[in-house]
């Protein structure tokens, strides 16, 4: 599981909903203001997730019991 990625994906989906709803223009003004605030926060959160992301790399090794174990992998950058 990759929580940051899951958060990013959920944020993007919610953002798409918000933008669509606001573009349809069938929500009341006070609701629009709330959506705008929420959407702006999500845009910032998504940008921050991308900016701060550090790609993790691990090597999959089959353990003695057959279950997977993960080893650090040093990539020559």
């Amino acid at each position: 599981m990759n929580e940051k990625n899951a958060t990013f994906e959920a944020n993007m989906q919610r953002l798409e909903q918000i933008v669509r709803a606001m573009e349809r223009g069938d929500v009341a003004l006070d609701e629009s203001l709330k959506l705008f605030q929420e959407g702006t926060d999500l845009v910032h959160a998504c940008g921050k997730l991308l900016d701060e992301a550090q790609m993790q790399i691990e090597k999959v090794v089959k353990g003695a019991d057959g279950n997977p174990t993960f080893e650090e992998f040093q990539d020559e950058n």
Partner: protein
Amino acid sequence: MEQQVLSITQINEYIRSKMDADPLLGSVAVRGEISNYKMYPSGHHYFTLKDEGGALKCVMFKGNAMRLRFRPENGMKVIAMGKISVFPRDGAYQLYCSAMTLDGIGDLYAAFEQLKAKLAGEGLFDPAHKKPLPKYPGVIGIVTSSAGAAVHDMLRILRKRYPLTRVRLFPVRVQGVEAPPEIVGAIRYANRYKLADLLIVGRGGGSIEDLWAFNDERVARAIYDSEIPVISAVGHEPDVTISDFVADLRAATPSNAAELGVPDQQALQQVLDGYSAAMATSLSRQIKAGRQHLKALSGSPALRSPTGYLEQRRQNVLLLKNRLLSAQTQSVERKRRRFVEQTAKLDAMSPLKVLTRGYAMAQTKDGTVLRSVKQVNLGDEIGIAVGDGALSATVSQIKENGQ
């Protein structure tokens, strides 16, 4: 007759022109074994092809040599294509080789085509079976050699494009007899333990033999059976393998697979900027529309002239009331007419009505209607009803029909 004397240059040129005019020598394919292989700093390759009976000098110029799909070595059996011509400086003919393949490749191509036809027949390449790739893959499994350049190319591109993802490497051998079972094992293992959202299976460029593991039927079926979507990433752009056909997506190269597998963060940033702009536009449009609505309301009749507005409403109410009343009246009239019709129908069926048409009804003293002569005796008093009244009579004669 005096013999014509030619210079070396002249005779070599003469021989060259003879050879160059020959159609077979102009385009020939020669089978032999490589020896004396040398690559010069110029990039040209020089070697000799030989068989049991003889030898042929060969040269392959840099441009053609760069397109070789394998690294020639002494002892390799090859088929060399090109033209045979004279090298005037040495007075020697040689093969100017434009292309070269390993001998025996023909068998591999035949096997490739056979397997391709078989799997296509079974529907393994069916587009309907292709799974969509995740839009934002959280974990990408890479099934390839941990030694080659391919894995580093992929990691570099994935990190640059979408560092939010996590990469899990499944190191396998990608050539040789061990390669297919190891690749199959890695794909199955990743599926069994759900270790990735997306798999990239492949390797860097090499000869057709080097890539052969990805033409293996077991590998093809493992890719087909994978519940995790698979991108096939084998060799260079022109290399096509069975894995490419059966995978959910074919990438031209491993680097290309990394590009196809994840979104690009720069593009995502643009999308986010676009969302910000779209929200701002929508909001300001709504505020503007609200203002116009307010303006329109303040100019409405109700606000401009309340009494006039009320008067109009009152008249509307009156109009409606009249319509209601007239509807009621019409309804009563309709019901009355229906009552008269029904009464008329009843009246027509009344026995009294029959009497007015000249019939009479006889009754015994106790009021029973007479239907038979047997109901009375001579001398009985009976009542007779006619249209406009009743009278009494005495039975003076009885006569049954037929007597």
